[in-house]
């Protein structure tokens, strides 16, 4: 059951000029959150901005006894809310409504899991990796950024026992090119028949490219889409994703049915920007 909490900011780590991560005290919310779920955030008082914005739950904070105490957001500045989140100070308060949306469906051994992340699309994968590793799933993170300075938290995933394959547009770290470069290489090195689940989150063109590449290898990809969301609870019908089915293409609310969808069912042309 989603809760709306006035979460206190415990810390704000500015990772770069654009990226930061913010830790929030919110035991009730964090306790319920499952990998792939999101929260609707209001970071400023008043009408500016008016609406909340959706953010993935990044890491779950726990106390010595393993009880959830809060969670963090991984944030990149693009507009008014993300700028406000970038500038948060310890002690500030942020309203968070969640957890919302359907979680990832988890791979089970012997299936491997490949998580493909672009930029801030890394956010949903920390909790996913933790859950997958808890069930001993062999997990690999393909993580692409513009340059070496954009690849945050790669070590954290390594520490979880996740194989990490990096790539950068400028070749400054890992493979040169976008994240499909190491992904293509990985497909070449595994058996077509071996069980594998793919998860992707990042810019839309990247998720589409990953879906297409995987499809050409006979694989499905679970993509975590970033539709504009007005409410997060199914009230406004703003967040729809055009999904192909036998019965034709239908608009499905991402906040209720998603944000995770089978990439091959998405009508990418009609997804909006």
């Amino acid at each position, binding site marked *: 059951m989603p809760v709306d909490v006035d979460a206190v900011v415990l810390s704000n780590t500015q990772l770069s000029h654009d990226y930061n991560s913010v830790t929030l005290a919110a035991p009730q919310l964090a306790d319920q959150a499952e990998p792939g779920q999101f929260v609707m955030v209001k970071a400023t008082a008043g*009408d500016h901005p*008016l609406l909340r914005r959706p953010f993935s739950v990044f890491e779950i904070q726990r106390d010595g006894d393993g009880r959830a105490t809060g969670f963090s957001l991984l944030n990149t500045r693009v507009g008014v809310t993300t700028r406000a989140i970038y500038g948060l100070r310890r002690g500030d308060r942020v309203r968070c409504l969640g957890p919302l949306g359907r979680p990832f469906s988890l791979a089970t051994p012997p299936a491997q899991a490949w998580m493909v992340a672009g930029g801030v699309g890394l956010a949903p994968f920390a909790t996913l990796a933790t859950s997958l590793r808890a069930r001993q799933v062999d997990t690999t993170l393909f993580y692409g950024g513009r340059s070496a300075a954009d690849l945050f938290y790669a070590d954290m995933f390594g520490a979880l026992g996740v194989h990490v394959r990096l790539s950068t547009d400028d070749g400054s770290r890992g493979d040169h090119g976008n994240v499909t470069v190491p992904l293509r290489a990985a497909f070449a090195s595994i058996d077509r028949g071996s069980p594998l689940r793919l998860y992707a989150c990042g810019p839309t063109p990247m998720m589409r490219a990953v879906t297409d590449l995987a499809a050409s290898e006979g694989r499905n990809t679970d993509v975590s889409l970033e539709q*504009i969301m007005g409410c997060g*609870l199914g009230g*406004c019908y*703003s967040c*729809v994703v055009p999904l192909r089915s036998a019965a034709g293409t239908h608009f499905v609310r991402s906040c209720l049915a998603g944000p995770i969808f089978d990439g091959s069912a998405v009508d990418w042309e009609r997804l*909006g*920007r």
Partner: protein
Amino acid sequence: MSVDLSVDVGGLRLANPFIAASGCFGYGLEYDEVVDLSTLGGVAVKGLFLEPREGHPPVRIVETPSGMLNAIGLQGIGARRFVADKLPVLRDRGAVVIVNICGSTVDEYAEIARILEDADGVGAIELNISCPNISKGGMMFGSSLQGTHDVVSAVRRVTTRPLIPKLTPNVADVASFALAARDAGADAVSLVNTFLAMAIDVETRRPKLSNIVGGLSGPAIRPIAVRMVHECRQAAPDLPIIGMGGIMTAEDALEFIIAGATAVQVGTANFVDPFVWDKLRDGLVAYLRRHAISSVAALVGTLDTTRG
């Protein structure tokens, strides 16, 4: 001091004046986990056509200063499936249901009303003759006095439920539409629907919404909406009004009530805060106590316009 929040809007009894606005609360059941639907004055469900509709492709909303534009295009399951799948559950939850209906033709409005007439648990019918986001129907009717008259009287002939045409603010003289609605048999009117508006992405030089234009809602429009409620009240003091447009707090709701609204709808605020309902009720109770007013009904239309 105990205060009475109940109101009667043209025969529709509500436990309190706060109604979830159409299109801003799905079919109500989406909020089952966060709100006890029986604690709301009423639930105006998402606008229904006779048949299911897909609506417009994304992008469907865009935020603007103290407001938002929407061009959802009335995606919905259609009147029959609503009656079959949603209405029984809503009734079970104790919700007072206001069914918002929309047609491309006068006959379609009447046809939906007929379907609703046979259904259990329809508290009232809200006639959406004011949706600015569809090419046929909606505002087409609500921006002509004749169209308003035609739709209202056609539906009046087939329904015994409280009939509440929802007026568009995209007209010069909204009060004349309230009068036309009343004369055609409306029990009350609700206003305002959204203002036709647009936003442009200057980098791409394209509209931000896929539908080019959309409807503006939220606090930005509140002062215009309050004025329109005031005008309708002046023109037709006996016609109950459901006021709306940018209500975020109990104080905002009070502006509408004092201007002449018997009940109010709350749309955009529910997106920002789905727990807003308790706050609205509490704020209203506190106000009535502070001013020693025993009922909401006694407050309706008490605006004092004599110069101080």
